[in-house]
């Protein structure tokens, strides 16, 4: 536990050094990229879900007694594309969680429900009841509330991108550990300098 904490601190320090060394892109473009990821979470989830449900309605219901029907369902192009989109959703969701709070990502990406309702109303020409419009207003309000605040709150022990150091600390630690016995052997043989060459 403490070792882990120390490791994270070490990485934070490394990350800060890296940031200072390499001229990072401007804050604006970083923010833009993050909003793009959040939009990706929203759109991929909404599109994936609707394609999947459209495809599953085409293939018909799957009964518990005929579970192999699931395999045939994947052959439906709508279902296949829906699964790909949901994979994309999962990747973008994980990306967003890597730099933002869970309580930020979830409300911020719930606009997908609104998109689905709007698609239902204006593309599929379904009836959207007043209660549902109220739901859309509430969700949009909630998204506005959370989007105005910080994406990452300060109480995180590891809020400074823990593993952005170059080439991974573990690798060099493992390499050093692997070298240690070699060094000892070399020392015994009277040639202590050999293993040091590769390290910088």
């Amino acid at each position, binding site marked *: 536990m403490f070792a882990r904490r120390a490791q994270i601190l070490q990485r934070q320090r490394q990350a800060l050094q890296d940031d200072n060394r390499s001229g990072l892109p401007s804050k604006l473009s970083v923010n833009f990229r993050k909003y793009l990821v959040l939009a990706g979470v929203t759109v991929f989830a909404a599109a994936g879900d609707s394609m999947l449900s459209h495809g599953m309605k085409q293939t018909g219901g799957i009964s518990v007694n005929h579970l192999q029907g699931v395999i045939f369902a994947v052959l439906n192009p709508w279902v296949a594309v829906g699964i790909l989109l949901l994979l994309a959703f999962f990747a973008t969701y994980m990306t967003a969680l890597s*730099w933002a709070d869970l*309580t930020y990502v*979830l409300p911020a990406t719930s606009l997908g*429900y609104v998109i689905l309702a709007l698609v239902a109303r204006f593309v599929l020409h379904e009836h959207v009841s007043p209660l549902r419009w109220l*739901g859309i207003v509430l*969700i949009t309000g*909630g998204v506005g509330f959370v989007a105005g605040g910080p994406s990452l709150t300060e*109480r995180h022990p*590891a809020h400074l991108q823990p593993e952005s150091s170059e080439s991974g600390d573990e690798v060099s630690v493992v390499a050093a550990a692997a070298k240690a016995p070699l060094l000892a052997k070399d020392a015994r043989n009277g040639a202590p300098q050999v293993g040091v060459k590769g390290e910088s």
Partner: protein
Amino acid sequence: MKAVYTWSAILAIVFASVVGDVLLARAMRQVGDVGALWRRAGLGVVIGRTLGNPIFLLGVAAMAVAFFSLLFALSWGDVSLVAPAAASLTFIGNAVAAKIFLHEKVDRRRWIAASLVAAGVALLAG
């Protein structure tokens, strides 16, 4: 009696997906900023480090449990009850769990946001 089954399945969905979300969030916090890591070390390292994280795998397992609970719930109850109830309760549960287990600072702004979204989802899918 069917209502009891349905609601226990809904609670199982909520519990499993809150556990899954918290585990996945914690795993990704350990992996670190994916974009920065990708630029520095390549996509292979990002994928390897994510899939090699035991907490990530536990999170995915919890999500699978949530999915199968959803199937059970749907076999007992209507979609129009199960989907919105599970989704909106998950929003509230996540806010509580993120505060306790992820030490996120859930301030008034975020409580309001989570409650508004939860209410909105319940209305929208209902």
